[in-house]
């Protein structure tokens, strides 16, 4: 598994996600927003969290037009994996890699807390190390995480099983989204489930010293995804 983590002006979680990926056994290269091409052999592009371009215009809007995003779209079109976390999810939506848009939290507050999530399916490159329906606890930290889409898009996302993660309580019962997003949606897949966007930060919870390891499964899943590809 060779992951390329892109740094945009204003990204601030790129080192955390790179560290999480390395800890899980992946090879990581740091990529730069102004580059026209991804490093040779990139399996996974990571769009990290942060505040690219100071959230000017709309969150992720300017970063989504960066040079590297054209290469990232070509990568995704070839079936390559793309992981967008928090601001990276906003960038992925603005880039058209995922449907919908992330609006200002309905409660008008920046939220920053530990949050339970339900893993909706474990047959994807991002979740194979989890159990189906497993409840994990990671953190959320965002002001614009209210995922909005038109009713046809929402019906397609739900009908095709493209909801990756939902906000829930410790027992796995769904809760009202902390940001107002519909159907407690915290993360969604592309139709081929090779692109994942999520608001929570699994990269924050990859070792006991800093609060838990519930997020490590996502990066372990990704590290394993390489061998699946090689066998194919």
């Amino acid at each position, binding site marked *: 598994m060779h992951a390329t983590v892109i740094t945009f002006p204003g990204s601030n979680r790129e080192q955390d996600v790179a560290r999480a990926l390395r800890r899980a056994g992946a090879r990581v290269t740091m990529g730069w927003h102004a580059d026209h091409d991804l490093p040779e052999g990139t399996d996974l592009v990571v769009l990290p969290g942060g505040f690219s371009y100071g959230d000017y*215009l709309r969150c992720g809007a300017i970063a989504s037009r960066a040079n590297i995003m054209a290469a990232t779209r070509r990568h995704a079109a070839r079936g390559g994996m793309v992981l967008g976390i928090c601001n990276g999810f906003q960038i992925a939506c*603005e880039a058209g890699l995922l449907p*919908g*848009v992330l*609006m200002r939290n*309905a409660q*008008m507050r920046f939220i920053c807390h530990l949050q339970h999530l339900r893993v909706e399916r474990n047959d994807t490159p991002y979740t194979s190390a989890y159990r189906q329906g497993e409840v994990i606890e990671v953190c959320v930290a965002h002001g614009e995480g209210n995922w*909005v889409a038109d009713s046809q898009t929402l019906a397609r996302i739900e009908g095709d099983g493209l909801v990756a993660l939902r906000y829930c309580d410790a027992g796995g019962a769904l809760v009202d989204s902390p940001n107002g997003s519909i159907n407690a949606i915290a993360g969604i897949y592309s139709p081929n489930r090779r692109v994942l966007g999520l608001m929570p930060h699994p990269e924050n919870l990859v070792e006991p010293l800093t609060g838990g390891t519930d997020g490590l499964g996502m990066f372990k899943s990704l590290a394993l995804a390489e061998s699946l590809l090689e066998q194919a």
Partner: protein
Amino acid sequence: MKARVTVTLKTGVLDPQGKAIEGALGSLGVAGIASVRQGKVFDIEIADGLSKAEAEAALKDAAEKLLANTVVENYRIEIGG
């Protein structure tokens, strides 16, 4: 040539910023405000030598590619003298 692109949220899209402003106006005692929706205004200077039709095409391109997210926003183009 001067132009203005106005970007507004589509009807039905929740606008917490507008709601907050609406609430603040109420607490300031400003009477007669039923509701507020917040949008964005872009004042743009068109490069010399473009016709009005060319300017309109360029502004439409700008709005579609960057200024508005047409999933949730509408835009309006006005070209001045």
